């Protein structure tokens, strides 16, 4: 099982991610009980999967609208957001909107081209789980959450207003 960083720790990933390709000829009785499926697939097959006893989560592509997933947020265990390349920053906004605008408090997982050097910023936007690119050293990556002591600070002026727009947990509290 691929390691996952969750809340600042390495854990075993219990979820399988069904890629678009895999979904093309899926028989709807996939092996694992916990499946992450693309939004479009969720829309059409969620009921069937559920009646078969699967737990389901949703995968959003970089151009999926957070509004589109909003109706299902209460029913799913996690949202995974895909980064085709680490330099494609759309997923940062998606995560932040899910947290701030839709008050989604369950797991938001970053998948795809996820590297150690972006973890701090992803985390600050509301991601709390990270499935790193295969070549990354997962143990070494844990220290990325300490890259900066700075975190949105609601106390002191004059940083309050400029920085304090992210109602997120303090990274230190995740350990």
């Amino acid at each position, binding site marked *: 099982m691929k390691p996952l960083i969750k809340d600042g720790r390495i854990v075993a990933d219990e979820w399988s991610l069904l890629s678009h390709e895999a979904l093309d000829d899926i028989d709807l009785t996939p092996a694992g009980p916990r499946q992450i499926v693309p939004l479009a697939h969720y829309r059409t097959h969620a009921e069937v999967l559920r009646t078969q006893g699967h737990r389901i989560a949703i995968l959003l592509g970089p151009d999926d609208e957070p509004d589109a997933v909003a109706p299902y947020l209460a029913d799913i265990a996690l949202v995974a957001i895909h980064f085709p390349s680490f330099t494609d*920053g759309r997923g*940062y*906004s998606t995560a932040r909107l899910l947290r701030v605008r839709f008050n989604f408090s369950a797991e938001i997982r970053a998948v795809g081209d996820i590297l150690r050097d972006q973890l701090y910023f992803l985390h600050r936007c509301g991601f709390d789980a990270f499935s790193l690119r295969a070549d990354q050293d997962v143990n070494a990556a844990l220290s990325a959450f300490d*890259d900066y*002591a*700075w975190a949105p600070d609601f106390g002191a*002026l004059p*940083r309050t207003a400029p920085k304090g727009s992210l109602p997120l947990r303090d990274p230190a509290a995740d350990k």
Partner: protein
Amino acid sequence: MYRYNETDQRLVDDRVRQFRDQMQRHLDGKLSEDDFRPLRLQNGLYLQRHAPMLRVAIPYGTLSSMQLRMLAHIARTWDRGYGHFTTRSNIQFNWVRFADVPDILALLATVQMHAIQTSGNCIRNITTDQFAGVARDEILDPRPYCEIVRQWSALAPEFQFLPRKFKIAIAGGEEDRAAVRFHDIGAKACRSDQGEPGFEIFVGGGLGRTPMVGHCIKPFLPRAELLNYFEAILRVYNRYGRRDNKYKARIKILVKDLSVEGFAREVDAEWRHTRGAGSLIPESTFATMEAFFAPPAYADARATDLAFVAPRAENRPFARWVERNVAPHRHPGYGIVTLSLKKTGVPPGDATADQMDRVAELAERFSAGEIRVSHEQNLILPNVPLRDLYALWEIARRSGLATPNIGLLTDVVCCPGGDFCALANAKSLPVAAAIQARFDDLDYLFDLGPLELNISGCVNACGHHHIGHIGILGVDKNNEEWYQVTLGGSEGKHSRLGRVIGPSFAASDIPDVIERILQVYLRERLAEECFIDTLDRIGLTPFKLAVYGERHEAAH
């Protein structure tokens, strides 16, 4: 000036530590060039034609004398003894050693400086009016707002990987001296009908290969909403800006695709969610920030002081320098001094380590220890008593910093071009030098009056050639360097792009071409009319005729 609090200092220190680690992993082969490139760029480190280049941020162009001394020290110790001040009020060191950069950044952090987000697809250094806080026509001092935006944008987690670079300029004066309509976001201070302070917001301006003048999408934004509104713009851009083609990835293309109204609607829809909450800036923050930028204690200086009036009457070179290089100050008896980095033959914007030390010393002696960098690539001492001008001028002159040419033809704005830049199509520095050498006669220059000449070595337009009254652009034709000339560009209130006059020229022809253009102006001008106004009145045709002759006229 703003002084870092503990959080600011921690942040730049942590950044240095983080980058040192990234550099080490890269050197150890654990971080590939592809994965490292965006990281080093976000720390200002480029690979240029001949050597690595480090771009250091000078937030809104403001430096303390201590910071300038550090830049001098870095130039002397880690580079080849000079630095290049850019049109974005940054400084570039052209000859640093790759692996030394973390050490240089650590030194910068000791004087509250950094290179964060000076490159890469993120929010870049905020620029403003070089006369901020001392200009007579000021509506709001832009610096407190610049600092607020700087803090918000530095490491803004959501906006580290935008479709493309993002440049913000904020101007505080009646006159726009920050070219706000040529930035991704431009904010120009204004007041509502009720007198509340706020900003007029422009988006989608920019130069580069698709030059565009920015459009107003909000005639009045209350100042407390500045960050909420910027965040809405950035989020719309981050989510919908094109990422498939880097030449179409700037916000200006998105604004064009959605139409200005369409884009403004998207931003308003996003803003609706945070308006009145979110990152609303409390009044107390403005007060705290404004206190940092309080004016120095002004002495009881007078414009009639003999120490100023006498040399001005007797000494023509001094009087000429005062005429061109000293701007009116808001406080009586004071002046704003521009130290020219445009001495003939010296690359525009370049300063040696010794010159930087000298400017720091002048700032301490005469100008409350503060220096500004202008987007015309000169250095400014914002608070000089007129009675000290003569003493200052004598020292500046000995250091090659008192060329009396501010706003004149030889105050050339120019990018590093083919001598340094890997993207260049043509050299720009020798062209600037040739023009400065040809038009070195001060009587002639003063007679010509205000004239902006801008040179870029390729379409990226780092030398702002589109907005020069005369613009020169280096182009490549069959592997040869050629130069295209535009006329009539302008920034400020009458922002617009220059028009190409015709086929391009060889470098050696450029001084002659400029001379013919100037002859038309001198022949046609009405009393007191400056170049750009004559050009507006008579149009391009007489200039084209003078440059290309009848042949060209017939061909068009």
